[in-house]
């Protein structure tokens, strides 16, 4: 039984393949197209998933889509056609099916599942919990913005029941996005920047925040809609919101002041309060010890940490691709259940579900580039020591190994690594490599066996989805946030053998069982997918060395003119002709 799950047409489209209920492959389209948050039909991810599964289009039993276009259309029509947005005809509920039939060429059955049901299934079916309370929170799906439910894995089917929902336009996700926009960051991209900014501020605007959102009975809450404008689609907030805070909206790239930090902090505090309160309600309603979460708001790792520490649940599973991309997992799981009566999934040991490149292919690529790379094939220990040499010297290493991660976090397959003890590393990474805002913290990858020695963490956190306090005897300035917290990934040799071996080698050399791990990308770009992407990143950033599977490339080996050549090459690729199956060179197709 081959079921393909799809998320598409809002942001972060993705595809996965479930074979006989087991997750075989999953990938976001942006990793192929190189268009960040690419919302289009995930054509490349789809083809790759089939290739990974060794099947063709005739072997797919069902395609499962992550939301109900007809219900979504109802909500869109209720809200009215946004000013300057698509006309009513463009909000075509037949669009997704047509895209699947015509764009992917699929002839078989297509099943559609509600957006939040897909989120819930994506968490519960891959949690490994026999039963659990379910909480999904995001901007909006069809009508629901938050759902409460329970999952029971004992019976037939998915065993998921969603018993309550908060409906649009009342939405914690949209609240967070609105403040993200007010603080001068991009909606659907900058929310985690706001979360990172919050610890620098004081909660001076709690009263104002509580005027924006108020908790209601049971699972309900309400937004004061006077402050929001997203219904009309022009912008997220109305004029009343800047008046409430007494400050104009921050312009993109403008200076971040104490005011902005305080607003971010106040927002984070109120979000955590509401989520904690609703988690308690959910626990009271279900009486279950375990909680599964998904939806974009479940990527708020600070709130997740508080729910686990201060909330009533014993265990928390947040689906690692908790945003819309990961909802394709849930849709596929629901389809499998519907077709077979069986609960699919099982615990998710890792998210290395994307493409990988064999070392011999990389050798061919490097030969074509003429780069003098060091070849460590069949010499893994030597490779790791060479990498540790560089990390210990304070260098930033691009680490490309194994299958690409699914979800927004780099977890040791496409990561930038550095020494967390280096006091200058955070600034260096932000300035030269990531080219991003200086305030944003970096996360550590720590050996699971040593995690408790350095963090207030008593359970594995393999997906970097919660924060905790740093308790380490070591000084770890590169990964410790201003409030003393960190967002660790615990690394086990079972899930990530070579990555764990690298950190172990670093521990042996330095006594420090962790590394800075930040996603392997530069500002504005998706995480690298292929070795070619990694070489482009190497050439256009300040990365000191790059590991491509068994090969090590030092910056000195890279042609000096790459930094000069790449921008023109890549900018032109983006100007309407980004990579993909339809790729044709814009430079040739100057319309001259």
């Amino acid at each position: 039984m081959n079921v393909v799950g799809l998320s598409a047409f809002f942001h972060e489209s993705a595809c996965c393949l479930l074979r006989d209920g087991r997750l075989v492959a999953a990938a976001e389209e942006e990793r192929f197209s190189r268009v960040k948050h690419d919302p289009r039909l995930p054509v490349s991810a789809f083809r790759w998933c089939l290739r990974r599964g060794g099947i063709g289009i005739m072997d797919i039993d069902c395609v499962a889509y992550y939301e109900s276009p007809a219900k979504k259309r109802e909500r869109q029509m209720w809200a009215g056609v946004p000013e300057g947005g698509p006309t009513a005809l463009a909000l075509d509920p037949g669009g997704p099916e047509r895209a699947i039939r015509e764009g992917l060429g699929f002839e078989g059955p297509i099943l559609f599942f509600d957006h939040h049901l897909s989120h819930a299934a994506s968490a519960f079916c891959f949690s490994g919990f026999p039963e659990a309370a379910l909480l999904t929170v995001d901007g909006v799906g069809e009508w629901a913005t938050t759902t409460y439910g329970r999952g029971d894995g004992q019976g037939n089917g998915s065993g998921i029941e969603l018993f309550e929902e908060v409906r649009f336009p009342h939405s914690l996700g949209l609240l967070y996005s609105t403040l993200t926009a007010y603080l001068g960051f991009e909606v659907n991209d900058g929310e985690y920047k706001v979360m990172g900014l919050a610890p620098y501020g004081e909660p001076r605007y709690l009263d104002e925040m509580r005027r924006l959102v108020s908790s209601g009975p049971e699972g309900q809450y309400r937004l004061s809609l006077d402050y929001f404008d997203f219904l009309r689609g022009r912008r997220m907030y109305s004029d009343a919101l800047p008046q409430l805070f007494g400050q104009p909206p921050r312009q993109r790239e403008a200076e971040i002041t104490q005011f902005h930090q305080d607003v971010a902090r106040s927002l984070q505090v109120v979000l955590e309060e509401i989520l904690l309160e609703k988690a308690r309600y959910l626990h009271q309603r279900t009486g279950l010890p375990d909680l599964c979460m998904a939806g974009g708001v479940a990527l708020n790792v600070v709130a997740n940490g508080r729910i686990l520490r201060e909330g009533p649940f014993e265990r928390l599973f947040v689906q690692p691709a908790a945003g819309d991309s990961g909802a394709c997992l849930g849709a596929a799981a629901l389809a499998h259940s519907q077709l077979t009566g069986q609960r699919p999934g099982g615990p998710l040991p890792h998210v290395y579900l994307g493409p990988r490149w064999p070392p011999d292919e990389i050798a061919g690529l490097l030969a074509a580039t003429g780069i003098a790379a060091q070849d460590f094939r069949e010499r893994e220990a030597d490779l790791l020591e060479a990498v540790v040499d560089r990390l210990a010297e304070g260098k930033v290493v691009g680490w490309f190994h194994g299958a690409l991660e699914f979800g927004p976090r780099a977890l040791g397959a496409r990561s930038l690594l550095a020494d967390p003890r280096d006091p200058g590393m955070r600034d260096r990474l932000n300035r030269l490599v990531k080219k991003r805002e200086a305030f944003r913290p970096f996360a550590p990858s720590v050996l699971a066996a040593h995690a408790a020695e350095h963090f207030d963490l008593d359970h594995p956190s393999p997906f970097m989805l919660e924060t905790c306090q740093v308790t380490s005897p070591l000084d770890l300035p590169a990964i410790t946030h201003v409030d003393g917290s960190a967002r660790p990934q615990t690394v086990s040799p079972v899930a990530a053998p070579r990555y764990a071996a690298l950190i172990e080698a670093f521990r042996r050399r330095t006594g420090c069982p962790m590394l800075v791990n930040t996603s392997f990308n530069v500002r504005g770009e998706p995480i690298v997918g292929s070795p070619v992407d990694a070489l482009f990143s190497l050439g256009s950033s300040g990365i000191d060395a790059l590991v491509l599977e068994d090969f090590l490339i030092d910056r000195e080996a890279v042609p000096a003119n790459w930094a000069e050549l790449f921008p023109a090459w890549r900018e032109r690729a983006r100007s309407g002709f980004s990579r993909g199956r339809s790729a044709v060179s814009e430079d040739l197709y100057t319309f001259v």
Partner: protein
Amino acid sequence: MKREPISIWQPAEIDGEPVFVRPDPLPLGDHYAAVKVLRPKKAELPLRVGFFGESVAAGYLYAPHLTPARVLESQLRAAGGDGNFEVVDLARTNETLSSLAETVRTSLQINPDVLVLLIGNNWNLLETPEASPYAPSVEARQRYARALGEEGIAGTVRLAAEELRAKAEAALDFIGLIAGAVQIPVVVVVPEVNLADWEDRQPPVWLPGDGIARWHALYAEATRRLDRQDFDGALVATASMHELDGGRCAATWRLRARCFEGLGDPGQAAGAARSEVDAAAYSTLAFLGAPRATTAAREILLGAARRHGFFPVDLREVFAGHTGSPFPGRRLFLDYCHLTLEGIQVAMAAVAAEVLNLSGMPFSIPALATPAISPEAEATARLGAAVHTAHRLLTVGAKRPILEHWCQAALDASPGIEEAMLDLIEARCAPCPAVLTAAQQRNLASPYRLLLQHGWRWDHLDAELIEALQAVLERRGRPAGERIARLLLAHHAVSMEGTDLTEPPYLWEPLERFYPEVMRFADLSERATFRSPWPESSFCLVCAAGRDVEVEPTLRLPAALPGEGRRGRVRIAVNGEEAGGMDATERWSRSSLLIPTSSLKPGLNRLSLRWPAPEADGRAALQAAVERLELGIAADLHPVFGEVFSLIARLR
């Protein structure tokens, strides 16, 4: 008065003097003249000519080594005195009407005395992107549906023509107004295009009844007769094709042009080729053509000249006078519209004569001197012509001769370009973008530096070009075949695991697809499948000697209308020889075919799928397209012969 940027030249000061400065050119070239600083005019002389236009005006493939503006300046100085003329080059590749008008307006800050406009080749989808069944907006699709439903294809042609005329006339009226206000004369150069050596093999839209099957049968007959040099017989076949396609299919016109050429009638050949250019306009067809000025563009330019008193220089007449033929080709054109050195020289001489007349100064026309250009730059431009031709030209007959012509011409200009040719092949064969390759690094350090305009960037294997380069190199005694085979096999040889030949590198003619599948439209998703609008689709199969190859296609024959069936046999050919086939329907089917090593060449092979013609009633198919467009859904107006999900080739 606040100074404004002129195109990409920003207001600045140098030593207290207000000037305009452009950013440094990008390392692989950009779309603008390489002149760093523009200065306001300080004295009456030299007279300043502001030179505007599209890539032809920018000297595409020759720039920055040589540009028409510089040639014009040297001609003006030779005829009218060294210190009396200067030309300011504000031409821009990819120029559009709105930015042209803005550049002309802002250029008044540097006080030109004469304006020269060389425009009209770009007046295609750059100007009328909404006149298309793939238009990005719902409203545009509905407008297109109305035109198609009420008047058929003629309606869509009218729609696009009206939109273009309105836009172009508005821009030219604006230029006329501002030039008139400051009493600057305007010279309008009406472009000529390559008629003899550029072709647009595009299929017809759905035709009533079984018109599609009949048209393609006639096409096959016409090409057979042309191959046998039976020009009269071919002409008869094309007349029947015309009856079916109503004179709106570019390929039919091209066949007729070839017939007339073969019959020794260049006048009729030119007429047919001009009709081909008009028929290939983007707005009516769904394929990426080449930018060339149409009859409508010519009429708009001449009309503006009459209205505003512009001074026209008609390159059609100039070139015909120069060559004695109304059917210009490779002597004057590097590709579809870009000029050779001779073409630039002749065109600019005509412009110079007009400017000299306008200047009121005494002058004497000297014999035309060949513009100075290094052999390396000339060779590089010609190699660029070969690359453009390889990528963009779809011929009704063999393509190799014109490719080999340009490759050979490059070698003739400068034999040292051999290494650049081999570097280009190496970059094409590499499993990464050319910019990452060692070949690129060598080329950058060579005197034959290929810029982006020379087609350096390309994501496909470039099979035809590789074969042409190999042929000319070997004719020169350079045994390139072994090296090329080694490169191909290193990165592209089919393996036991299998290679999907529908992946982009392996498309033999990447442009032999529908426009939105070649170049992304704003709101159209890509397709996961390969769709063929032509009866034959070809793919590159690379293999070593001595092994059989198994080919496993997953394909279908799309029906024109929902719920309709379709059935037929797809034949498979290797290097032109049939090797087998499979039965197919409107639903996916998978089959497998063994190709013995005896049918394969070591290295590059051409694997072709030959599709049965669609048999649906074209009228109903077009009506279905109208209904989709009315709903705001993009629609194909052309039949799809076949669709491939995957074409796996693996060693046996």
